[in-house]
């Protein structure tokens, strides 16, 4: 008898208003597939979250390989050897597939601390080869289809040699062939004594794969049995909680006072309030769906995850784009291209994701209730707060929303009450058609019952109600008719009074264990050519063309003197551009770089003017300048972090403050007459050699190494790409944020030293306004303002391009101030092109 590799012992976990897990014990043996089955809200997600370290149990404990453990966070779980493949995993969209996979376990480094990219790519390729699909591990993870993303996760879990692998609805996005690959991986893992927890709604899969099955219902473990001998009937019965007596008997209800009606309130002669005919959406998630809903009936829409139910609702409501088909409301065919149009047509939609799509958290209960129907509650153009309050009070009373005050932020209410408010919001619009997407998900039993009663009441008033749900009992007990969606198509339609759970569940299952069989996306343009991303290649081309043009049209362009001057200019702006870029890549922004440059230069200048030997003052000045720059950057980063204020506000204030400091230090004087040897740093007057170029090149090289070959550098990209995913892999967003600002400040200080050295004087207004150009260089160079993307090469090329444009404009006798026009235009062009490119890729 093998000992379990993972055990949950008497685990309980509560959320406000919900007992998610009630004294549950669960264990996984090495080499077995233990299936976890249950309806939505049964507690499966909570159990997974406990095992993967996202949540902690309120009571009870976990044991791993016999020893009691505390899985404090996802990193700890991974270190123990527990790999979780979530349905909707957080990942780093701008980082490559290979890097995503490597970050799960920490990027491998050599003795110097540099990342072994070859190993990263080799490992990723090995894992992906096992999948057998043409996946390029070098492409950004955002370009993977959902199916591929899942498969990569699974392959990574296999490769990590985890001892416990949790698979949450792994086949929901896979085709039949891909699912077979998954099953082969599972066999491999079993041979390697990996314990597998398999969560799925697909009973056929469960019965095929599982060695043992555990059923959860309402947070309690109902039973755990060997899979042999378990029938689908028994499974459904355990999940749903009632006896299933063959195909002809209806499932009895629990609410004696709200029985499912055997007779409909509508007669077949009533024209349908909602007619949908041959509806297709542009993404292929809704395929030729047609159905009617009559006044007073509740139509339940059931289906598995990915069946297209939400997409159907979105297409009707005007959020998804309709490719073809008709939506008719009360005989009229309105144009519906936005939720606003839908509202006007009398269609209401209560979204699936309450937090993200439903409520405005910090705004009041009253606000959230009346937001969609303000036109009815205003006097002409002006808002009528009294009318709003009255309407909100009516809703709150009718729907029994438990609250403290109408002005209370809605975020303080429980999930069930928030849901009632969103429902009430739409009821205020007196809709003809009311569509609800998972209306009782994540809500306690009491509130669930109340919402069901509300829906019935609304239907009795004549509204056509569509209720999308993944909970079989809900659909069976609280609708009049049931539509089953499968793979985007309408698979079956049942009369709820006579349907059985078996029939409905069976209709939702694909014939084989297949998912969407849509054709694969057409091949996209390659992201890189010869190792250089397409964007940088374009920049290089523009630089070459512009340089050539300048060389041809102006004498002396290619003269050594002119070229070195140009290169020195480019070097300085590369450094400043990198100062902006390192902060931008981490998801921040620093508009004080100009003032920091000036501050560093001022400090250096003042030290240089001290009556000491230049051998002392010069190193001291450089050191202090770099220190001042770094300190300034750190202050910016720390203030935005600790004060939780957006960096644009902090760096705006600091920009003003640092500039004030500069003026104070200079006391209205100009710094000049610096020791000659200091100037050699930038220019050696006699030979014309420009040290700036060397310093710039070295700085660029160093930053490149840090950003692309050290862990810290990659962490900058990680937090810019997805701060939530970063936390899940153990990267500290706070520490990394500070590092980004620190490096940015350091580079600004360096730029200050160079600028002072090359002009040998400074005034208080030095570098005023330079932050715009620095950010321009970074953005043109490929660093997206949202973070997580960009290469140092791009900054060099961006700097070169801008300086060449500058030279060109000077030749045309357009002054420096007018250059801003071109700079602005270039930023716009680059950012628009990027937007178009990104949209096209999707």
């Amino acid at each position: 008898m093998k000992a379990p590799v993972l055990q949950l012992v008497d685990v309980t976990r509560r959320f406000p208003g919900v007992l998610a897990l009630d004294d549950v014990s669960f264990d996984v043996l090495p080499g077995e597939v233990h299936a976890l089955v249950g309806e939505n809200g049964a507690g499966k997600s909570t159990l997974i979250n406990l095992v993967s370290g996202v949540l902690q149990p309120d009571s009870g404990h976990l044991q791993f390989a016999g020893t009691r453990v505390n899985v404090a966070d996802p990193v700890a779980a991974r270190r123990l050897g527990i790999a979780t493949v979530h349905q909707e995993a957080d990942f780093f969209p701008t980082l490559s597939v290979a890097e995503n996979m490597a970050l799960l376990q920490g990027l491998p480094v050599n003795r110097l601390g540099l990342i072994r990219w070859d190993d990263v790519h080799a490992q990723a390729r090995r894992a992906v080869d096992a999948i057998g699909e043409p996946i390029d591990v070098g492409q950004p993870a955002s370009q993977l289809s959902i199916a591929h993303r899942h498969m990569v996760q699974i392959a990574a879990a296999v490769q990590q040699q985890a001892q416990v692998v949790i698979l949450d609805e792994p086949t929901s996005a896979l085709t039949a062939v891909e699912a077979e690959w998954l099953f082969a991986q599972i066999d491999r893992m079993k041979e390697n004594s990996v314990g597998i927890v398999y969560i799925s709604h697909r009973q056929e899969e469960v019965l095929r794969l599982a060695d043992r099955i555990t059923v959860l219902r309402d947070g309690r473990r109902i039973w755990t049995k060997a899979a042999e001998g378990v029938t689908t009937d028994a499974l459904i019965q355990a999940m749903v909680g009632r006896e299933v007596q063959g195909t002809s008997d209806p499932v009895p209800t629990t609410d004696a006072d709200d029985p499912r009606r055997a007779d409909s309130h509508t007669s077949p002669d009533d024209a349908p309030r909602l007619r949908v005919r041959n509806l297709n959406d542009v993404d292929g998630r809704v395929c030729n769906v047609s159905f009617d809903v009559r006044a007073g009936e509740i139509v339940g829409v059931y289906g598995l995850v990915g069946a297209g139910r939400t997409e159907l609702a979105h297409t009707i409501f005007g959020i998804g784009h309709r490719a073809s088909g008709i939506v008719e409301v009360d005989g009229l065919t309105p144009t519906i291209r936005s939720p606003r149009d839908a509202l006007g047509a009398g269609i209401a939609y209560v979204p699936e994701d309450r937090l993200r799509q439903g409520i405005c958290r910090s705004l009041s209960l009253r606000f959230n209730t009346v937001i969609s129907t303000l036109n009815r509650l205003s006097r002409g153009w002006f808002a009528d707060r009294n009318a709003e309050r009255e309407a909100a009070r009516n809703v709150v009373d009718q729907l029994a929303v438990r609250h403290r005050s109408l002005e209370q932020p809605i975020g303080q209410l429980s999930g069930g009450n928030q849901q009632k408010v969103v429902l009430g919001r739409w009821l205020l619009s007196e809709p003809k058609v009311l569509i609800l997407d998972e209306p009782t998900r994540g809500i306690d039993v009491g509130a669930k019952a109340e919402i069901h009663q509300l829906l019935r009441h609304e239907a009795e008033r004549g509204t056509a109600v569509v209720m999308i749900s993944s909970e079989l009992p809900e659909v069976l007990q609280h609708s009049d008719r049931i539509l089953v969606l499968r793979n985007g198509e309408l698979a079956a339609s049942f009369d709820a009074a006579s349907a059985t759970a078996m029939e409905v569940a069976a209709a939702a299952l694909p014939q084989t264990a297949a998912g969407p069989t849509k054709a694969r996306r057409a091949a996209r343009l390659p992201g890189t050519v010869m190792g250089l991303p397409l964007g940088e290649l374009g920049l290089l081309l523009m630089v070459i063309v512009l340089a050539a043009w300048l060389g041809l049209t102006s004498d002396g362009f290619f003269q050594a003197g002119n070229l070195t001057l140009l290169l020195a200019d480019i070097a300085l702006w590369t450094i400043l551009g990198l100062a902006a870029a390192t902060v931008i890549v981490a998801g921040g922004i620093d508009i004080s770089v100009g003032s920091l440059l000036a501050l560093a230069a001022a400090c250096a200048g003042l030290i240089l003017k001290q009556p000491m030997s230049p051998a002392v003052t010069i190193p001291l000045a450089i050191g202090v300048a770099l220190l001042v720059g770094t300190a300034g950057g750190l202050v910016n980063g720390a203030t935005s972090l600790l004060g939780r204020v957006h960096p644009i506000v902090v760096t705006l204030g600091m920009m003003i403050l640092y500039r004030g400091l500069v003026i104070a230090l200079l006391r209205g004087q100009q710094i000049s007459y610096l020791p000659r040897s200091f100037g050699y740093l930038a220019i050696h007057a006699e030979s014309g050699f420009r040290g700036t170029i060397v310093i710039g090149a070295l700085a660029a090289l160093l930053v490149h190494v840090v950003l692309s070959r050290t862990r810290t550098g990659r962490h900058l990209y990680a937090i810019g790409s997805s701060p939530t995913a970063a936390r899940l892999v153990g990267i500290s967003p706070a520490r990394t944020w500070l590092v980004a600002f620190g490096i940015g400040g350091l580079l600004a200080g360096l730029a200050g030293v160079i600028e002072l050295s090359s002009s040998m004087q400074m005034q208080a207004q030095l570098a005023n306004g330079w932050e715009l150009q620095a950010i321009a260089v970074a953005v043109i160079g490929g660093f997206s303002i949202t973070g997580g993307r960009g290469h140092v090469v791009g900054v060099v090329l961006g700097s070169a391009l801008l300086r060449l444009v500058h030279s060109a404009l000077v030749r045309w006798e357009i002054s420096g101030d007018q250059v801003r026009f071109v700079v602005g235009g270039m930023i716009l062009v680059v950012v628009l092109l990027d937007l178009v490119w990104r949209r096209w890729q999707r």
Partner: protein
Amino acid sequence: MSHSWKRALATLFPWCLLACGIILVATQVERPGALVHLGVQKARIGALAAVMTAIILTGGIDLSVGSMVALSSVVMGVVWNAGVPAEVAALTAIAAGFTAGATNGVLVVIGLSPLVATLATMAFYSGLAMLLSGARKITEFPETWLDACTFGGVPNEYWLLLATFVVAIVIVHGTRFGNWCYAIGDNPIAARFAAVPVNWTQWWLYAASGLVAGFLAVVYTMRQGANPTAHQGLELQVIACVVVGGTLITGGRGSIPRTLLGLAVISSLDIGLSFLSFKVEFLTADARLMVIGALLVLVAVGNEWLARSRE
């Protein structure tokens, strides 16, 4: 310190600053009449701050306001030089401002981050202003214009300030447009699902910003001519007023009357300190800047903390 003490402190802080500022001004002013003219600069910032508040409420930002003023001002000057009557020149300037703002609106609606879009247009419009004016000031305006610069004894800038605040307060706090702004700032996705016209609202806000910039340009040009470089850095002072007033940069929280508070705080402190600097030696322009910069950050942090503690 207990929680409610801290909250009281954070709420009162801007008011204390205002009190300090007013006391400074009242005690240090030598020629009260000059206050009206010193305040004109602040009134300009205030007019723009009214619209900027609404934009920031939606979670956006407009860094190009200064450049839009410069552009409209130059357009007015250039058109006037071409021999067009003053009224037409003024209308052209306003139209130019509106177009610039509308373009910002289009960029934001198609999906660019407002930060990047208005950063780029800030450079673009100011460069355009430079180009059109040949980087020169246009100051040969008839004397009669100067008379038209005040109305009822009060400089036009104050009327513009009053008008923009009144209109902004009415629209944002009295109509559903305002509710839409708050919803977009709190959760743009939920706002869309709640049938709020997100794109339309945002476009109009940025266009309004350009419109006000156009009006401001007319008022400014009538007094001081068309100077393409005179408005650099304006946007930062405008944003400072909004932030000090208590509107969160992330959107969804704040109000337009509070921006008046921010404007009052910054104006009174700036003017008060500048008066003081005549008497106290070390209080120079730099010290004023440092004070304002530090205050901006402090108040912003305090406001964030306050907002968080309310939840």
